[in-house]
């Protein structure tokens, strides 16, 4: 199967999957018209669920800053992964030179990783 047919199939499949999901969501609304699905509106029913209590204060509270640090670390190593994939595919052609180049690349990043470990940035507290 050639390039265009492959990606075309995937794109059209994505479209079909979205429509499938949409129909799944809309189906109960159709069944409601037929009287198969109940709808008994009630002010309490549409409040935010919190173990039976009324919610106190806004939900948008400020979260632990630590989540952001892990997301940043992830971003850095995700870029590393992106570099590694073409390297892996062409390694047998590149030989030991490519191996060494990538070893240096990873060694540089690993100093950052070890620094993060030593500084305690990998601890969750």
């Amino acid at each position: 199967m050639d390039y265009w047919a492959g990606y075309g199939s995937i794109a059209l499949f994505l479209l079909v999957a979205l429509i499938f999901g949409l129909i799944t969501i809309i189906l109960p609304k159709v069944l409601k018209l037929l009287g198969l699905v109940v709808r008994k509106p009630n002010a309490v029913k549409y409040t935010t669920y919190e173990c039976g209590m009324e919610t106190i204060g806004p939900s948008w509270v400020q979260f632990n800053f630590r989540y952001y640090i892990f997301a940043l670390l992830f971003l850095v190593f995700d870029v590393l992964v992106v570099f590694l994939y073409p390297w892996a595919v062409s390694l047998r052609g590149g030989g030991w030179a490519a191996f060494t180049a990538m070893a240096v690349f990873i060694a540089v990043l690993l100093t950052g990783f070890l620094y993060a470990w030593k500084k305690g940035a990998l601890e969750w507290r």
Partner: protein
Amino acid sequence: MDLQAVAFYVLAAMLVVSALAVVLIPNVFRAGLFLVLAFFAVAGLFITLGADFLGAVQILVYVGAIGVLLLLAIMLTRDVHHGSPGNRLWLPASVLGALLLGAVSWSLLNTTWADKAAEMPVPATAALGASVFDLQNGFILPLEIGALALLAVVIGAIVLVGEKK
């Protein structure tokens, strides 16, 4: 019109609409979601240009990492539901934006574009790796400089944590 052209125009329209939505929607979280959609459309455009590896990387890094980072940053800010407020600097900002748009369109219109679509390498990833890790004409030094830039990001992130303590 063939199917590839249809795919291109659909994706381009999606990109333009979602980019406009990012700017025009007052709700910051929804604007962020449209930015993610714009990233996704760009990935699609890369694939229509024959760069499937780049398309996958666009989804992996921009949608999966930067998009998440962005939504996280939006959630970490205070009073998101008030939306993005008006700003006194709108006049200089719009002048600057117009200038930038002019510069970009001018350079786009005055570049002679070489048409490379005919000689597209189909299994692009192996060719890409081979050209990056070639000893004579490769890009090994830029690669290592990229490693240093990423190292700076790691250290910067850790310094940020240190200041929060």
